[in-house]
């Protein structure tokens, strides 16, 4: 348990550090809006917010309340020009699914955690595709979504490592 630092031991610091999951999820959502000028990036933009939601729901679900996910999701939808409600719905359902399956990932090797994320990503991106098809009332191509899911899953270890390090440094493991 010796990883708690000075920030987490002072009362104000500890309270501020508890905002970390919400703050990182917000940053992750904003990162998806960044216009990174790489060919094809717009289609493949990884679902960064999903990574943060998964990480925090597995390790510190108490610090990522559903209302925060709802707010971040609505903000994201409004800023990216998409139909409002889609992102909060997906983030909240992801959270609920991970909470139910959480016992399988807790205290397991990273491979388990990663596999869990892979399943969640495929389900979430498929759900998004289905929802967009329903809203547009036409069958949309799923090619972009398949690559997007693959890229999201591939980048998860980096995100998980970074989130884990900040978590240990600022909030402590539990």
């Amino acid at each position, binding site marked *: 348990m010796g990883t708690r630092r000075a920030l987490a031991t002072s009362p104000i610091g500890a309270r501020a550090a508890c905002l970390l999951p919400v703050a990182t999820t917000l940053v992750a959502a904003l990162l998806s809006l960044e216009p990174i000028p790489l*060919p094809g990036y*717009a289609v493949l933009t990884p679902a960064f917010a999903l990574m943060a939601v998964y990480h925090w729901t597995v390790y510190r679900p108490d610090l990522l309340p*559903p209302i925060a996910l709802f707010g971040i999701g609505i903000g994201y939808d*409004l800023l990216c020009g998409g139909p409002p409600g889609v992102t909060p719905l997906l983030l909240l359902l992801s959270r609920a699914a991970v909470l139910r399956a*959480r016992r399988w990932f807790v*205290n397991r090797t990273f491979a388990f955690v990663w596999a869990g994320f892979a399943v969640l990503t495929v389900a979430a991106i498929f759900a998004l595709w289905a929802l967009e098809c329903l809203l547009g009332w036409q069958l949309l191509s799923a090619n972009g979504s398949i690559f997007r899911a693959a890229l999201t899953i591939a980048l998860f270890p980096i995100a998980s490592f970074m989130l884990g390090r900040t978590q240990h440094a600022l909030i402590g493991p*539990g």
Partner: protein
Amino acid sequence: MPPLTEAGGGGAVTPLSMLRRSAAHRVVAPLLVVVSVLMIILGKVDQVMFESVRISVTDYAAPFLDMVSRPFMVIDQFAERVEAMVDLYQDNLRLTEENRRLLHWQQAALALADENRELRDLLKLVPDASRSFVSARVIASSGGAYLRNLMVNAGSDSGVERGQAAVVGEGLIGRVYEVGVRAARILLITDLNSRVPVIVERSRQRAILAGDNSQSPSLWYLDPAAPVKIGDRIVTSGEGGIFPPGLPVGVVGQVESGIPRVQPYAPLAQVEYVRIVDYGLADGLPMPLAVPHISPRAAPRAAKTSRH
């Protein structure tokens, strides 16, 4: 001593039981899911409902997004500079050759401009309305597979209006469809909802350039008797009064199961700056669909647009 987890081990997680301390927690998440679903349905039924909220959120977030996107731009500029240095010799050869060709074209263009001016004088042709433009930087894009739009850091205080054309050096990229005070959103020609009246330059055939979220939009309603060829230039036709005629859009890149696809001239994935041009035609774009009795704004707009 860390709290024991549900999985039984000691360690890095918070017990789930802490979440269940209050009954409120159980209610909040399902309630928010229901609210999200209701918002999706409401947004679908009445597209105007969230527009003002969206515009004000965009306005508030614009300075922040502008600031955040700058480091990415610096990184990109650095990468471009390194790339340019590596290709210096090849680029020089290519540009010298291109310059020689362009000088030839300049002579041709000057001669044509003279001839054009004389013919216009002869015909007493009414000149096109003057154009003004605003240059803006892209500060956010819509990540994901189902939207193709860009947010730029210029809004109504810079003179940007709904319906204006967004172009880059190479050609048309889209149109302005949401305007805040400090920011505006551009619907790209590749978006599923984009329809641009175009003309095949060689054959003067009219068609609609329809986006489908892929990188190359398709041409609809072409005359099957006069097929297009790969490499045909596609320019705006000016019909519908949204874009002026003759704006370059792209070339026919391939024909997929009978439907020609257009490769846009503009590198849509790498646009950093756009020019928003006022051709004096901005009235042509109707407002989004709304349930008439909910949105009184839609009616006068519709009357206005019917003149075109």
